[in-house]
């Protein structure tokens, strides 16, 4: 197990290296000169050249890339063109907001999708099953920004129960954090819940028709034991992957939702960095997202081996 984790971490390092290269090269293709954007109306040729030299943008590409890489290894991802602050701390500052939104959204999604998916599989063809299917169809087809706007109009505007947008760190005031996280988390979570409900339903249905479920029934076990011990243990193994992929994609920042709710997470940061042509920040954000994605996948693989004895990690 230990060796497996180490090998996977090394592999992840190679993938991250590739990510830096691709992002670096792509940014060269993006039209727009970051130094011009940073200077705006204060543009004059002398300052322009001086700034370019200070940011190292006058050096050959290979040199720029290698020096970026060398610094990245020491945790230095450069400085923001716009604020002049270190990228590493800018990106890490945004992480708690994104983490808390993603975790709340996934928790909400799992709490909804789990009972809904399992029950609609157990009573397939029933009214509940049809309702669940309508719900998940709705969730995947209605755009999340529209649901977000409707949520703001209803719960913040008409009813006045929740703040329309904004963020309070959980460490500062958990209650106010909670009131602010509800709308964006439910908006994002509904989409995830819809995907999960469908997946859990079909996974449970598949396991219900397995021979070993009939064996368990033949043993005269209680229905609850058959479901919990024999059906769910098997049905949930593939579900773990879907939950993890969803979580990973939310960790990447839900750009539209973070912008809509003024949520200062990684997604919002990415959006602002693109707007400002703040390449070092954009690179840093993409690198962080890629690293989180790889880490989540590694955790899933380890978890898989714990859940399914037929899989061994070596």
């Amino acid at each position, binding site marked *: 197990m230990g060796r497996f984790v180490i090998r996977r971490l090394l592999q992840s390092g190679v993938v991250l290296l590739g990510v830096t290269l691709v992002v670096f090269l792509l940014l060269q293709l993006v039209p727009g000169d970051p130094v011009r954007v940073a200077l705006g109306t204060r543009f004059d040729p002398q300052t322009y050249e001086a700034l370019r030299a200070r940011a190292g943008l006058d050096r050959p590409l290979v040199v720029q890339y290698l020096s970026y890489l060398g610094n990245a290894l020491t945790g230095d991802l450069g400085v923001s063109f716009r604020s002049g602050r270190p990228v590493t701390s800018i990106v890490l500052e945004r992480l708690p907001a994104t983490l808390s939104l993603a975790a709340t959204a996934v928790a909400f999604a799992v709490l909804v999708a789990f009972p809904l998916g399992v029950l609609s599989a157990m009573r397939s063809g029933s009214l509940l099953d049809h309702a669940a299917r309508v719900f998940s169809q709705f969730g995947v087809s209605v755009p999340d920004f529209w649901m977000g706007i409707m949520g703001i109009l209803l719960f913040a505007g008409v009813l006045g129960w929740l703040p329309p947008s904004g963020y309070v760190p959980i460490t500062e005031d958990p209650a106010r954090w909670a009131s602010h996280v509800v709308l964006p988390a439910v908006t994002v979570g509904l989409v995830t819940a819809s995907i999960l409900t469908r997946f859990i339903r079909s996974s449970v249905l598949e396991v219900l028709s397995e021979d*070993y479920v*009939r064996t*368990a*029934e033949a*043993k005269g*076990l209680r229905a609850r034991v058959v479901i919990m*011990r024999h059906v769910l243990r*098997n049905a949930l193994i593939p579900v773990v992957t879907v939950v993890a992929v969803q979580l990973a994609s939310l960790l990447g920042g839900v750009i539209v939702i973070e912008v809509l709710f003024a949520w200062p997470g990684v997604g919002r940061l990415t959006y602002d960095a693109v707007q400002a042509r703040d390449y070092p920040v954009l690179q840093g954000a993409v690198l962080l997202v890629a690293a989180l994605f790889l880490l989540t996948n590694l955790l899933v693989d380890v978890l898989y081996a714990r859940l399914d004895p*037929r899989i061994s990690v070596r």
Partner: protein
Amino acid sequence: MSDCPVLDIKGLTVTLGTRRGPARAVAGVDWSVRAGQTLALVGESGSGKSMSVLAATGLAPRSARVTGRVHLLGTELTGLPEDRRRRMRGRHVGFVFQDPTTSLNPVLTVGRQVSEAAEEHLGMTRRAARARAVELLDLVGIPSAARRIDSYPHQFSGGMRQRVVIAMALACEPDLLIADEPTTALDVTTQAQIVELVADLQRRLGTAVVWITHDLGVVAGTADEVAVMYGGRIVEQGPVDAVFAHPSHPYTSALLAARPDPAAGGADLITIRGAPPSPLDLPAGCAFWPRCPVRADARCEHEVPPLVPVSAGHHVRTFYRHQRPTGEDG
């Protein structure tokens, strides 16, 4: 041995709801099995042999409509609330299914799968049930059972897996063991071992056995009684010696003739022409008439023949009768 049958089935009919309409899988079947006795249910796939047993014990699919009377140890099962039926089934009936690879749960240890029924029905503690699982695995011939109890099914060979399934079925010392083609998925040498194991366990434990099979070779060696099923009905039933000596239904005769005979050397196998009918689409009259080599009577295609006695305990459902060696004509 008590006179009361362990399992007694009368007029059992099973209709399955399918997308293409109702399918009558079992049409009025009677049989019973006594303690220590082995009943073989013989027939091709789709003949209703498995379905009659599953329906009788409450394991039929949800879409099935089951009528008839089923007594397990004198208790009427039909109409019993599912919870009571579940307890009767788990406590008194053990099942061994066809393919041990799919009938074992891949993510639970074999020990857990053997012990859980004992915990549920005998009120054993987890620890006691675990000790019982070791005993059972030992009983069915799994070497160093105590060490292998925490292994998973995929760590066993096919034959060993089927032994685990048998141990599981015996966990509560059931009065009845139902073996649904337990050797079909195994290789030939292992098949013989499993047949021998079940026969041996039956001698030691006095269990009644219902052996569902299409292999007449197994029937000849192990069964006391045989019931041949075709198209959801029993077409011939009786003591195994009587049925083998005087097969009275054209289908039974054909089945016996279709057995490979090593003494015949390289001679071609005799087969039954055509395919067994689908329960969705049963022929009128005797279900066997389209394939029947005899088709003795005009009624075959319109009327279901009645079950008539051939000799003591030996019955057959056909209009046609073989010339009996005694000269008696039916």
